[in-house]
C-alpha cells in the first residue's frame, strides 16, 4: 500500500524486536469474541487515478454548468489562486494545533493576524482563533452572554438565519435557557416595538443578524440602545462578511458572531467554513475557543503563544466556557490570506461590485410585471422579491434554462409564500443577470 512505508522484511524485523510471533499477537488484549476475523466489506483499494476518476464522476452528477442566484448564508465569491497555494503548503496543512509554540510560530502569527483582521472588520476589541462556523459561533456567543449576565432569557430576531436559530435551540434546550423569537416589521428589519415589549431585565441577550436573512441591514445602533437599557447584551451575527467592506461594522454590539466563508472559502456543499467571535476586551475571559497572544522569548524577541487557556476544556473540563477543541484553523488561514490579498481597497471594491450588481438585478427584476421588492430597508447583495406565483414552480422552470433560482423563503417563513431571496455577488455577470431576468419573465408568462 503506497501510504505505508514498511517492507514485509522490516515488519518482520520489528515484530522480532517486540518478541511477537505474528501481528495478531499485538492485538492479544482484544478478546477473541470481539475480533472481526474477516476482511471489512469496503470498496477499494483504488489507485490515485481511480480516486480522481470516482470523484470526477460524482462532480458530473452535480450542478456544473448552472448559474446560481443562491446565497442565504453561503456565498460564491472570487478567490485568488494564492490562497490555495498557501494553505496547501504542508507546513500549514499538516501541522497540529500550536501547543508547542517554538515550532509553530507560523501558525501562531497567522492566527494573531486573523484575530487582528477580525477586530478591524467588526470594530471589536478582541476576536478568537475561530469557531466551527457562523451558526455555532452565534450559539456560543449567546451562551457567552448568558454567562456574562447570569440571565436566562434570549430574544432572537426571526430574521436570523433559520438554521442558526435551529442550532441555538438545540444547544439552549438543556442549559435552561429560554429562547423567544421577535417578529420582523414591514420593512424587513427587526420589529423594535415588539422587541421593546418583550425586553425585561431578565434578558441576557438580543440576537440579530445584519444583513439579515431577508437581505436587509438591521439598525444595529438602535437595537443596541434598546438592549442596553435593560442591561441585555447585543449579539450581532453576520453571514455575509463581505458586506463589512461597505456597510458599517456592528461596533455597538457587545459580541459579534460571524461566518467567514465569504473570505476565500468555497461553498463546498456546506463546509468547512470558519466561525468568528469578536467582543470587548473586558469580556475576553468568557470567550469560547482558542486565543493567540503576543509575548517575548527568553531573548526578548517577539513571539506568539496560545493564551488564556484556562477557559478551555482541556484545563477546566466540566467548567470550561465551551467544549470546542478542534476548530477551523486552516479555514481561518485561508480567510487571512484572502483578506491580505484583497487589502483595504480590494475589499471595498468587491463589496461595491456586490452592491452594484444586486441593485442592477433588482432593477431588472422589477421591470417584470408582478415582481415586487418585498422590503424597503437598505440591502447589500441579497434582496427579497415577491413573485406572482409559487417560487418552487418558477425555479423548476428556471432549471431548464440552466439557472439555479433564488432561495425559497416559504418553508422557513410560512407567511412569505411567494417570496424569494435573490443573491447576486461579483461572480455573476451582467449577461447572466439579464438572462435570469428574461428567463424569469417567460416563466411567469407561461400558463400555470
Amino acid at each position, binding site marked *: 500500500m503506497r501510504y505505508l512505508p514498511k517492507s514485509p522484511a522490516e515488519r518482520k524485523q520489528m515484530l522480532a524486536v517486540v518478541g511477537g510471533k505474528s501481528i495478531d499477537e499485538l492485538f492479544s488484549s482484544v478478546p477473541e469474541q470481539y475480533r472481526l476475523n474477516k476482511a471489512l466489506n469496503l470498496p*477499494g483499494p483504488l489507485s490515485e487515478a481511480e480516486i480522481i476518476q470516482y470523484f470526477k464522476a460524482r*462532480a458530473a452528477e452535480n450542478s456544473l454548468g448552472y448559474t446560481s442566484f443562491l446565497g442565504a448564508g453561503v456565498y460564491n465569491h472570487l478567490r485568488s489562486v494564492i490562497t490555495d497555494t498557501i494553505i496547501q*503548503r504542508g507546513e500549514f496543512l499538516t501541522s497540529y*494545533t500550536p501547543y508547542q509554540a517554538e515550532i509553530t510560530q507560523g501558525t501562531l502569527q497567522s492566527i494573531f493576524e486573523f484575530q487582528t483582521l477580525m477586530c478591524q472588520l467588526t470594530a471589536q476589541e478582541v476576536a478568537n482563533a475561530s469557531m466551527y462556523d457562523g451558526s455555532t459561533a452565534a450559539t456560543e456567543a449567546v451562551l457567552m452572554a448568558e454567562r456574562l449576565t447570569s440571565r436566562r432569557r434570549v430574544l432572537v430576531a426571526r430574521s436570523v438565519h433559520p438554521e442558526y436559530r435551529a442550532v441555538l435551540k438545540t444547544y439552549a434546550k438543556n442549559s435552561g435557557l429560554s429562547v423567544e423569537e421577535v417578529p420582523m416589521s414591514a420593512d424587513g428589519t427587526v420589529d423594535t416595538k415588539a422587541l421593546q415589549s418583550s425586553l425585561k431585565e431578565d434578558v441576557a441577550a438580543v440576537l440579530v443578524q445584519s444583513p439579515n436573512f431577508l437581505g436587509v441591514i438591521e439598525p444595529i445602533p438602535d437595537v443596541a440602545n434598546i438592549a442596553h437599557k435593560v442591561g441585555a447584551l447585543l449579539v450581532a451575527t453576520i453571514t455575509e462578511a463581505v458586506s463589512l467592506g461597505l456597510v458599517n461594522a456592528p461596533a455597538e454590539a457587545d459580541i459579534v458572531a460571524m461566518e467567514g466563508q465569504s473570505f476565500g472559502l468555497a461553498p463546498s456543499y456546506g463546509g*468547512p467554513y470558519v466561525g468568528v467571535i469578536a467582543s470587548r476586551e473586558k469580556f475576553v475571559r468568557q470567550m469560547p475557543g482558542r486565543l493567540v497572544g503576543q509575548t517575548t522569548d527568553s531573548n526578548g524577541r517577539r513571539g506568539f503563544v496560545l493564551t488564556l487557556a484556562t477557559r478551555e476544556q482541556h484545563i477546566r473540563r466540566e467548567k470550561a466556557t465551551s467544549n470546542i477543541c478542534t476548530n477551523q484553523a486552516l479555514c481561518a488561514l485561508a480567510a487571512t490570506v484572502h483578506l491580505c490579498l484583497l487589502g483595504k481597497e480590494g475589499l471595498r471594491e468587491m463589496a461595491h461590485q456586490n452592491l452594484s450588481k444586486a441593485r442592477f438585478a433588482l432593477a431588472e427584476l422589477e421591470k417584470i410585471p408582478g415582481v415586487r421588492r418585498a422590503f424597503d430597508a437598505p440591502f447589500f447583495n441579497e434582496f427579497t422579491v415577491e413573485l406572482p406565483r409559487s417560487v418552487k414552480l418558477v425555479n423548476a422552470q428556471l432549471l431548464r434554462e440552466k439557472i439555479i433560482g433564488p432561495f425559497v423563503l416559504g418553508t422557513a417563513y410560512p407567511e412569505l409564500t411567494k417570496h424569494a431571496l435573490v443573491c447576486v455577488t461579483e461572480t455573476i455577470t451582467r449577461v447572466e443577470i439579464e438572462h435570469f431576468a428574461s428567463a424569469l419573465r417567460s416563466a411567469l408568462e407561461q400558463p400555470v
Partner: protein
Amino acid sequence: MSEHFKKASQHVSQNERLIFEISSPGKRAFELPPLDVPAADAARVLGRYHRHEGVSDFPEVSEIEVLRHFTRLSTWNYAIDLGMYPLGSCTMKYNPRVNELVARLDGIATEHPYQPQELSQGCLKIIKLLEDCLLEITGMDSITLQPAAGAQGELTGLLLIRAYLQKQGNPRKKVLIPDSAHGTNPATAVIAGYQVENIKSESHGQIDVEKLRDLVTEDVAALMITNPSTLGIFEPRIAEIADILHRKGALLYMDGANMNALTGITRPGVMGVDVMHLNLHKTFSTPHGGGGPGAGPVAMKRILEPFRPTPVLIEKDGGRLLLDANRRESIGRVKAFAGNFGVLVRALAYILAYGPGIRQATEDAVLNATYIRKNLEGVFELPYSLPSMHEVVFSDARQKQNGVNTMDIAKRLIDYGFHPYTTAFPLIVPGALMIEPTESESKEECDLFIDAMKSIAQEAATNPQLVKTAPHTTRVGRLDEVGAARKPILRWKQTPARSEAAD
C-alpha cells in the same frame, strides 16, 4: 543509511514582521474584473449604514509580498510533511494529497448546500458511501455526518441519549466519565444538561468494574468510555461494562478518538457500545491544518436512529438520494447545512485508497507503538504495564530525579528534529509522555526517534541543564506564557513607533 546520519541540522530562518507592519497605502494584491453594471452610489443607497472610511488599518500589500509573508511564516512550523509527529491521542498521520485535489474539483468545492437535490446527487452519493463505509468499520446501525468535530460529535451523541431516555420518561441526571478521559467529555456533558461524575481508574489504569456496579444507578444516563483508553490500553471488559449500564437503563458512549487502534480488527458495535463518534481528522487522515477543520460523525445503534440531527440522508426508489429535514423526534440541528462536506470528501478518498486493506494501517500503527515501547521501556518509567496498542504512555519519574520533566524532554526533542509527544496527559499519569507514532512512520524514522529519546535520557542524567533550557535550535526560545496571560495582547494595533516593532 550512513551510521552518522542525524535527522536535524540548522539552516537560515527568515524573519518576517506582521502583515500590518509591511503594509503601505495604495498597494494591492488582487484585482477584480471590471464592473459590468452601473456603479451604485453606496453613500446614497446605504444611507446611515455606509462605511465611508472603509476598514481602518487594513493591510495594503502586493501579491508577491503576501506570498512571501505566508511562505516565510510557514517555514517556522513543524509538520507531518517534515517528519514524525508523535502526539499521543492526536493521530498525526500522513495526509494524502490526492484528497486535497478531489475536494477542490469543480462540481465538488463549488456546490451550494441549498441547490436543488436533483443537482446534488454526486454530493449525496459521496455522503452515502462514506456513511456506509463508516458503518461497516464501526459495526453500528446508523450514522450522522453533521458534527463539525469530535467535541460536537460527543454533544450530538449525548443529546441522542438524552432524547432516547426522555422518550422513556426520564432523561436522568448524570454522566459518568473516567478520570483518564479527554477534557471535551466533561465539558460536553454539561452542555447536554448533565452533571459530571468522575470515576477513578483502578490500579492498571482501567475502569474499575466492581465500583462501576455501585455507581450506576437510575440517575445515570450514560458512561463515556474511550477505548482503547488514553493510555492506549484496550478495555477487555467493555461488554460487561455495557451490560451493567444496560441493566439500569443507561447507555454506553464511546469516544472514538482512538479508532486507529481498532479499524479492521474489531468493531465497537459488537462490544455493547450504543453510540460513538469518530474523528475524521485523526483516524481518517483529513489534515489537521494547525487546528482544524475536522469532522466528528456519530454512529449509533438502531434505538437512537429516530433522534438523529436533521437533515438525514434517505434513499428513495430508484436510488435517488434526498436530505430529509422532516423528522419528528430529531434532536434538531447541531450546525448549519450538511456538515463539513469538504472534510467528508477527503475521508472517503482515504478509505477508498485502502479498501479492506485499511487493517494493515492499524497493524502498522500498533506495531510502531509497540516497537517504540519495547525500545524505550528500560529508559523511561512505564506507569501502566498492560499491553498497549496504538500509543504508549511513559512518565518522567526517572528524569525528574535530576529535575528534568516531561515538558523539558519534549522541548529537547525539537532539537533532534521531531515534534514533541503529548505532555501532561492523561491526567492520571503525573508527568506523562504520551507517544503515538501512527502507521505513517518507517522503521528508520522510528529508530531515529528511539535514538533521540535515549540520547535525551542520557543528557537528563549527565547534563540536565541542557535539557531544561531546550530547545536550542528554534527561531524563538521558550516563550513567556505567564506574561502573555497576565497582560494579554491579542491583536496588533497601530502605534506611532510602528517601524521599531520589527524583529
